[in-house]
Every structure is written in C-alpha cells, then in structure tokens.
C-alpha cells in the first residue's frame, strides 16, 4: 500500500503534528520527531511492504490486557496491515517514540487525527509509551533493548514458515547500551537471519542527555559488524541516502542501518534546551510562547492557538 503523499510531505507532517501536540500539551517527545521524522516516513511510505490497516481509523479504547478471560484481545499491529506471508512486520523498539509513530500513522492515512487527541488520556489505547495495544505496536518494547531479540525470533519463524515478508525494527542508538542488543545481533548473525533488518535513529541522545556524557558507546558501526551484522550508514534526513542504505545487500546476516540524525532537525530553536531533549516540557509560559512562535516559523506552519490564562 502506497500513500498519495511524498515521503518528504509525510516527514513534514510528522514534525508539524508532534510540534502542535507538544505545544498544546505543554510537553512531549518533540526531539524524537526531529530526529526520526524522515525515518518513520520512509518506513511507512516506501520501505515497508504493508497491507491496508485492519483497524478502525479512530483507535478503540483500551480493552484489557491479554488474559485467558479476554479472548477478544488484539494488539495495535493491525494498523500496519494484515498478518500474512507476504507483508512486512514492524516493531517500534523504543516505545518512547510512540507520539512520533502515531503522527506518522495519521500522515500515511492509517489513523484519524482524532487518535492523537487520545494520546495519554486515561482509558485510551493511544498510550504515552507505546503498548502492545497501541496503534502500530505489536509487542511491548518499553523496556529498551528487547525489540531486536523478539524481531529475530519472529524473523526466524517466518523464514521457517516460508514467508517472503521481512521483519523490520525501528531502533534507537541508546539501546546499544543494553547488553541484550548485542546478544540479539550475535544470535541473528549466528542463525543467518537475513529477513531481519533494523533502522537505528542515531541521534546520540538519551534520557539523561547526550550519550557521550551518560555512557560512551564508541563506534557502533564497528561493534555491530564485529558481532556479525551488515551495517550501512547514512544521513537520517537525506531520503536518497536512506533509500541507498536500506537497499544494502545482506545475505546471511541481519542489516542494521545507522541513520545519523540531529535531535533538533527542523526545529533549531530546541538547541536552546540542549542537552535536555528527551522529553520537552516548557519551563515557563514565556518559553512555551517563544518556542511556539519560533518553531512554527521554522516549520512553515501557523503557531498553535493557545488559551490565555
């Protein structure tokens, strides 16, 4: 399924929606939209082979956790299309990118804009940290570092079943601090799982700030190659470069694309907060109003109308 919009337009739309949401709610995962807009737009709009959504445009309310007493339970993966042999599967490994992923679902026509208004509301399935039942999610990835392992298992199983569809993981670079990420890469390489690929947002930021201050991880590309992955690197904001990197052949090995991004791409005003970018909460009404005006101008959208207090 292909959307009518260009991938550039989808990326612009993601930034605008996350910006609007963040200003209106006085907080949000704004920097993740800056770094990942092109990546998620690229995945949904062109890189992945996804069927039409099987879920309602307006997300249903939270309908319970999986249990023997809840036979109608389903995940939010239907927003990515049906489960069948030919279509791809996507895990959003850093579930903190949920706001950005939801914005992307709206931009590619898989979710209604009303879905974002349910974000982080009590009783809603559109949760702040993407849960299994949240739109576009299939597994819980809120504890970082478990997504690639799960995807490797799914990919091994799909290969055994003869599926042609691939498994893709959208990852964050902070996850390389978790030992499990390395266990997953070595296992995927050992078992030759090459229907698996990952797109990693290398924004070099994490909750506490810049990764180099929190925990130095060194040369990720070399480390991943040493663990057995095929690695391609590109500028995360250059769609042609993303396309080329994702097309890298990787027979017998998983592919990991390191998309080097800027955590303030498209919203340079955010640099005034550096390195506190993980979750943007405005310190004052003054800062909120200033960011509203400055970022809106950068994005080429009107400022968000704010209620006066």
């Amino acid at each position, binding site marked *: 399924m292909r959307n009518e919009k260009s991938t550039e337009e989808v990326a612009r739309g993601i930034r605008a929606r996350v910006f609007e949401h963040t200003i209106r709610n006085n907080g949000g995962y704004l920097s993740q939209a800056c770094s990942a807009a092109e990546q998620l737009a690229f995945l949904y709009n062109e890189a992945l082979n996804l069927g039409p959504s099987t879920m309602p445009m307006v997300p249903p309310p939270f309908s319970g*956790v*999986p*249990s*023997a007493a809840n036979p109608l339970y389903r*995940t939010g993966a239907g927003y990515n299309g049906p489960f069948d042999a030919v279509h791809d599967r996507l895990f959003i490994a850093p579930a903190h990118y949920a706001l950005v992923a939801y914005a992307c679902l709206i931009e590619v026509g898989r979710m209604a804009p009303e879905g974002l208004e349910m974000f982080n509301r009590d009783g809603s399935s559109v949760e702040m940290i993407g849960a*299994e039942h949240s739109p576009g999610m*299939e*597994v*819980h*990835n*809120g*504890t970082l570092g*478990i997504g690639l*392992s*799960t*995807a*490797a*298992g*799914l*990919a*091994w*199983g*799909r290969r*055994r*079943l003869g599926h042609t569809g691939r498994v893709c993981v959208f990852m964050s670079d902070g996850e390389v601090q978790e*030992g*499990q990420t390395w*266990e*997953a890469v*070595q*296992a995927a390489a*050992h*078992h030759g799982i090459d229907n698996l690929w990952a797109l990693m947002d290398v924004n070099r930021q994490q909750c506490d700030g810049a990764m180099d201050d929190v925990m130095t991880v060194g040369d990720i590309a070399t480390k991943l190659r040493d663990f057995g992955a095929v690695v391609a690197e590109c500028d995360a904001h250059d769609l042609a470069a993303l396309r080329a990197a994702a097309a890298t052949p990787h027979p017998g090995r998983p592919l990991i694309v390191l998309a080097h991004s800027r955590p303030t791409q498209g919203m340079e005003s955010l640099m005034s907060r550096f390195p506190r970018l993980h979750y943007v909460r405005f310190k004052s009404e003054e800062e909120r109003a200033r960011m509203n005006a400055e970022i809106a101008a950068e994005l080429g959208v009107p400022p968000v109308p704010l209620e006066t207090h």
Partner: protein
Amino acid sequence: MEMVNRPYAAAFEAHAVQHPEVLCLSADLTSSCEIDGFRDRHPEQFLSLGMAEQNMLSFAGGLGLAGFRPFLHSFGVFLYRRPYDQLVASIAYPRRKVRLMGFLPGVTTPGGMTHQAIEDISVMRTLPNMTVLEAGDATEVESIVAEADTVDGPVYCRILRGAVPRLFDTPLRIGQMRVLAEGCDVLVVTAGITTEEAIRARGALAGAGVSVRHLHLNTLKPFDAAQIVDHAASVRHGVVTLENHLVNGGIGSMVAEALAEAGLARRLVRLGLQDTYAHGGSRPYLMRHYGMDALALVRAIERLTGQSTGIDEGALDAVRVEAVHSAVKAEAL
C-alpha cells in the same frame, strides 16, 4: 522402587517429533538438560542460543508470535532470575506459548546460590498468565512434556533429570493433585522431590500410629485452593507443607492464603528454606541441613500433634528403598 534413566530425554523427543511447531531451544546446557540426543538427531528442530538468556527469552517470544511453541531448556534459575524483564514483557504478558523447562529445581544441584532456583515458584506464580507445573517422579517428567504443551499460554515446569524414581503409574494432569493418603490426624502437602521424602516418613509414621493425609501437587498454578481447604478441614491437628523452595511465596504461602481466605483455622507448619539462601552440597545433605527431609517432616508432625513418635533416622532408613539413592548419580553440572 523403579528408577528411570533420563525420562525427560525420551519424552521430549517423542513429543517433539510429532509436532513440527515445537522447537527445542538451549542456552549452552544442552547435555545438562538431556536434549543432546535430540540436537544430534533433529538438528532442524533445535536452536542453540548460547549463553544469552535475555535474548533467548525475547527470541522465544518472537517464535511464539510466529506460531511456534518453543521449549526453553536451561537450569530453572537461569530462566527467570537474569531475564526477568524479558520473561514478563516477551512471554508472560503476551501469553506466548513458550514452555520453560527448568532443570535442577531448588537444592537438587550442588551448584550453590547461583544455580539453585529457590524462589522460582514464588516468582512464576505471581506473574499473570503463567502456569506453573512441577514433576515429582519419572512418570510426571514423562507426561509433563505433552501436558505442558496443551497450555494456551506460557508454562514453567520444574523438571527432574538423571535417574528419577517412578512413584506414580498415572500421568500428570494439569489441575489434578494426587491424594496419596487419606488419614485424619495431619495433612501433609508436598511437591517435586519432597513427595518422596513424605512417602518415606509416612512409612514410619503409620507404625507410630499417626494418620497422615498426603497430597502431592504437580500444578502449582492454577492452585486448587478449594480442595486444599477441604482436606485441611478433615484433619485433626493441622497442616505441614514441605517444599524444595523458600517457604515464602511457595507452597507454604499458597496453603496459608487458601486457609486464610476460607476462614479455616488450622495450625500450619511450613518446611523448606526458611528465608535463607542455600549453599553447594549434595541433595541429601542439603535437605537434612535445611530441614527439608523426611526427618524434618516427622519432627514437624510431632510439634503439631504434641506427641513424640519415637521415629529416628534409623527408623526412616528402614523404610528407605536403598535402590533409590544408590542408583542416582551425583548431581553434577
């Protein structure tokens, strides 16, 4: 008493070859978990995931998502203590049909603290969606494989390996506890290797005039509280639980909860590890040292009845079937 050599190995192979969606996963303890023969004969159904349990559990969750039913083989402690987050997020929460085969439960290993799964029942039974089973003899080890594989969700099994005595002639059925004796003085509740201890104690207690009601549990979750309460109500002096596990959070706690919720006042003695870690040693030594053997059970029953039985170690030895332990190999790694 008949001793059966490596009952798990044969039972798993027989089941797996009939079910191509069953996969055999190992984390570098393949021969220690008796699946080396399976690996050699059925390499296409075997996945080596190395010494990396966190990945193995999430990977298994992914296999479950693809429709497979992976059997994870390791020492029980390695299946939950380090990869607890993965156990919850990748297996328990989404109800993947992952079968966690935990070898060397409790003090059946001389490996000491790092190798002894002494809080596994406690951890596993508090997880929503988890089923918890424990094999107590060769027949239960043989039947637990197919029975666990019927569970619509994840299941954790405490498995006995090596030479295992055959106590029962009917297979393990989930939810069906075994009533091994129907006495009226004291209720004894056991599971796993402690059932054999209680059988030995009963032999001596009968001669001393103590009438024991003995239940063997193989299904720890779901826990049949109603039946426990009924049995407890039918004895005169009280209840003793004897488990190869910490008394906190295990069978002792389950029975206490059942009695309290039913409002049934019965004295309860909980035998097992008493809020302590164990150390490395042989199984008989550890069971004696930590008060988990037949003699400890006799002394607990004496406390409940208020009467000395006159039973000592020699009397218990007299009911012991020597072949049981002389045939058992040392529990090496």
